[in-house]
């Protein structure tokens, strides 16, 4: 999908959220000098192209009390990575699931997932259930709870240089 200047402006105007007014798309459209219907249609296209992963309420886990957060790392035999990656990513309490390289001998793990919960025991229970229901007992894993956030800032797409890089990657 080729992003045009309007798309870049649209992304920049909405990365901090939609205006909380009765007709948010009309308000945005006026700001961007386009029609409301045109803007709504373009949003639908951006969603269909995978640029917008979802649209809705973006919650703050920690503020809502979901402060326990574990990175679970697995040493999955290479032929099984895709199958197990898909299983993990479909679990409701798993919030990320990525394949990364092993760095032997110190780092044997190639599949990473994140589990969030209100408390540590809830995260551990969720993990126990995942292991049991998918028969992952033989897959070596470790659980790395986070104990402190030293720095945390979300990805922003608010400036044009970054937007152009972003667009370039989507084209490629």
């Amino acid at each position, binding site marked *: 999908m080729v992003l045009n200047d309007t798309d870049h402006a649209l*992304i920049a105007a*909405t990365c*901090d959220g*939609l205006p*909380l007014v*009765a*007709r*948010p798309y*009309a308000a945005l459209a006026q700001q961007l000098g386009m029609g*409301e219907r045109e803007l*709504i249609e373009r*949003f*639908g296209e*951006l969603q269909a192209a995978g640029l*917008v*992963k*979802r*649209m*809705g*309420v*973006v*919650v703050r*886990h920690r*503020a*809502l009390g*979901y402060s326990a957060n574990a*990175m679970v790392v697995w040493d999955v035999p290479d032929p099984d990575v895709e199958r197990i*990656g898909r299983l993990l*990513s479909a*679990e*409701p309490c798993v*919030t*990320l*699931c*990525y*394949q*990364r*390289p092993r*760095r032997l001998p*110190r*780092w044997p793990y190639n599949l990473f997932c994140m589990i969030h*919960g209100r408390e540590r025991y*809830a995260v551990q*229970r969720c993990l126990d*259930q995942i292991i049991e229901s998918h028969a992952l007992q033989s897959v070596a894993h470790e659980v790395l709870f*986070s*104990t*402190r*956030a*030293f*720095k*945390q*800032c*979300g*990805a922003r*797409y608010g400036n044009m240089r*970054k937007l152009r*890089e972003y667009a370039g*990657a*989507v084209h490629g």
Partner: protein
Amino acid sequence: MQRTRRQPEPVSTPRSLSALEKVLLNDFQRDFPLCSEPFRVIAEQCAVSVEEVLATLQSLQERGLISRVGPVFAPRRAGASTLAALAVPPAELEAVAELVSSFNEVNHNYQREHEFNLWFVVTAPDPACVASVLEQIGQATGLPVLDLPLERSFYIDLGFPLWC
């Protein structure tokens, strides 16, 4: 893809939240209506007025419980990024964490319970910049840096189920 809940966790819901707040937080993380009056659609589903929906969302935002209502863009695939880790002697952890956080290219930096106890994400315009940041961190700390770039994502963002 539909996510199914296996067994609900026995955790309580925060008493300070109203029923409408809980519904807005949990049930509207995706499929936000693409129509002229999206908040009216939500209001009708919740059997409340559109003004009430808007005021409640505004309040949730002001209280820091939601960051926004809107699109979640796919992670930036342009440029380059990596997840990196260091095994820092505990006595030096704070100082090393501060050094790591001082790089603009570092946007997340966490302590985790493991021999590799400091985990951070480096994002830069190109792979050479990422490599340079890792090298600088390695040289400044004298510690080998574990470089674990993303190879493949299996995750589909459907929002985060609360009170599950």
